[in-house]
């Protein structure tokens, strides 16, 4: 029963973090779905929906600051709140990447996709899955999982390189496809960065549990083509 109010508030913050996470996960997948369907209206809805992500992020930040100001958390509690403040920033940026994909979709106008999307949805699904498990690792304070997830970033980088090479062949075959290829490359880049940011969340899991600031090195550039 000790510090019940504080415990409840801290739990509430973590519950809200999961809500924010699910909004971002949904945005990642939805951004690629509307691209796949060349659904410009859907892209506009997604851009508008990013506001909800931003508001949720600020609400969580405010709750964290209130808790710091009123409850003076220490040690593990303080690290949890510090980690949440960092993670909500990462999530908000991931939401921005999804919004960026929606903007690219709108920018492409009436032009058809250069090719059917295969690897880009895979990238999106992989990034979403990594994010989901990273947040799960945070809630469960699972250091082993937090260390394992960033190693999967290589898979996302591999898909990015594959997409790059494939788009290059389209450009070489028909230089008029440069714009359409570039748009898809931007999309892939946003997804690659999304997965990189999952690594930052995993680092915060380790910090929350151990107090150690570790570099998990998942933030590698995808081959020589990083941009």
């Amino acid at each position, binding site marked *: 029963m000790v*510090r019940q109010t504080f415990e409840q508030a801290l739990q509430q913050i973590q519950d809200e973090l999961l809500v924010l996470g699910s909004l971002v996960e949904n945005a990642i997948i939805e951004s690629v779905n509307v691209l796949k369907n060349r659904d410009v209206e859907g892209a506009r809805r997604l851009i508008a929906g990013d506001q909800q992500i931003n508001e949720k992020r600020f609400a969580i930040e405010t709750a964290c600051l209130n808790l710091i100001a009123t409850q003076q*958390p*220490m*040690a593990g509690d303080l690290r949890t709140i510090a980690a949440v403040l960092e993670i909500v920033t990462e999530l908000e940026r991931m939401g921005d990447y999804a919004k960026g994909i929606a903007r690219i979709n709108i920018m492409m106008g009436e032009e058809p996709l250069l090719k059917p999307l295969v690897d880009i949805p895979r990238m999106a699904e992989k990034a979403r899955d990594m994010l989901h498990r990273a947040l799960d690792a945070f809630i469960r304070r699972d250091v082993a999982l937090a260390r394992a997830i960033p190693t999967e970033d290589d898979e996302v980088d591999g898909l990015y390189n594959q997409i790059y090479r494939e788009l290059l062949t389209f450009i070489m075959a028909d230089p008029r496809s440069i714009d359409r290829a570039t748009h898809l490359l931007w999309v892939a880049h946003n997804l690659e960065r999304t997965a990189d940011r999952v690594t930052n969340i995993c680092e915060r899991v380790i910090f929350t549990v151990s107090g150690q600031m570790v570099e998990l090195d998942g933030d590698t550039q995808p081959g020589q083509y990083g941009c």
Partner: protein
Amino acid sequence: MRDANESRAIQIEELTAGFGSFTAVRQVSLRIPPNKITAIIGPSGSGKSTLVRCLNRLHEEVRGAWMQGRVRLGGHDIFATDVDPVQLRRRVGMVFQRPNPFPTMSVAENVVAGLRLNRWGRPAGLDDRIEESLRRAALWEQVKDKLHVSGASLSGGQQQRLCIARALAVEPDVLLMDEPCSALDPVATFKIEELMKELAEDITIVIVTHNMQQAARVSDYTAFLMMGEDRAGELVEFGPTDRIFTNPSDKRTEDYITGRFG
């Protein structure tokens, strides 16, 4: 300079102390670094005050009090037979929970009361000593025009700073502070805390506090005491304050500072 600082270091070796059949602290070993602020934290009854009162031999003044182990100040055993407790208390001053200026003495007389107790008579430059002590206690500006009014007429925070000035007047190496701000409002508390930071440039400070935030704000090092199974206080953990309050090594420390017990 290094040697001068070392004369203000306190080495506590396997200190056990109590009253009659009751053991208040047991087997505490700890090095209190010179010219730093060390906070002693822990639940009520964990022996914090007893521990610091051993450092200037005030503990032994209580009927039935006893202690074992060693305390060295600057490498010298403070319990050695040739050590005069009164002289020791000049080097190791103390400020208590409630401001306790001598009510019948003026502000100025309060400041030099320690000098007189030490039979220094009326040393040359007494007025300078009063001013310097009050300045170091950040009180001079408020009292310079009322040095001859009763010390008890000052506000609570000013009275506590007067007590600090009184302790500083005898030029101690160490200042022990037992809950020095518990009777003060937040503004007076912050003034005392700022003052502690300034004083630590010249002296070693040990503060007992129940206020976790105060310990985190002002101290360089923190020692956490808690009661063992037989209610005797034991040292659980000692280390840099930054680490103790963000990433303590012992779960009992974590549970205490996060308010999960105590």
